């Protein structure tokens, strides 16, 4: 089996005591011989607001949702670390931009930008938009 990721980024919204979920995740790690930190909540510092994206998993007592594509794109543009982020952001922008104008798309991303990285994200967005749709 090919391994595509070494951990899952998650933010625990409920229960309030995230420790309970971490303990359960540790138990899962033991059962599957996974790294203890396979469920990684270190990304919460990059999550500004909570968007309600698609449901990715549901079972009694648990509901896991992905962030909206707008929020994912805003996070990628704020991080803008390497060609992997750029490639991911390009795919997300193609989805988010369908039939929309540049300024409309940007307005929908703004609420989710990481504080302090807004300008980097805006320049990243402009570069990406121009690479896909030209400068108009």
């Amino acid at each position, binding site marked *: 089996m090919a391994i595509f990721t070494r951990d899952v980024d998650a933010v625990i919204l409920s229960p309030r005591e995230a420790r309970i979920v971490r303990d359960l995740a540790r138990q899962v790690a033991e059962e599957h011989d996974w790294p203890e*930190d396979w469920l990684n909540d270190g990304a919460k*510092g990059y999550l500004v607001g909570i968007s309600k994206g698609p449901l990715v998993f549901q079972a009694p007592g648990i509901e896991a949702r992905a962030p909206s594509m707008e929020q994912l794109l805003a996070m990628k543009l704020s991080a*803008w670390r390497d*060609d992997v982020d750029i490639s991911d952001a390009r795919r997300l922008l193609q989805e988010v931009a369908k039939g929309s104008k540049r300024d409309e798309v940007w307005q929908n991303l703004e609420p989710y930008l990481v504080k302090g990285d807004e300008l980097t994200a805006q320049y990243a967005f402009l*570069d990406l938009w121009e690479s896909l749709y030209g400068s108009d």
Partner: protein
Amino acid sequence: MDQIEQLAQAALARDHLKLRSLVQDLTRANINFGDLPRPTTPDSRLLAITASLIELLALRQKQNPPVWTKEIGPLKEPFFMLESAASMKRLRILCETQSPEPMRKRLFYAPPHFLEFA
């Protein structure tokens, strides 16, 4: 090939998926960056990227880098760590002006959050 050499090779090849994976392995291993030996390679570019990456990772882990990295000077010509910098003008400027200090002083240009992971 040891982990640090693999890291340097991946950076020069701009293989960012591999680079991410190696950095996360190194970070998890809690190694003492100050103890890493100077590579024996005669390749000055490989030596320069190794020194830059070790200094950067040590800085992020609040550790001291090994003393030998101070002896490693800059490249003769700038090297952009991201392939996309060739076609994205704002990204290119961002890399030139805000590359992390251990990279910039040796003329390796990368975005400010290069190799930062949650």
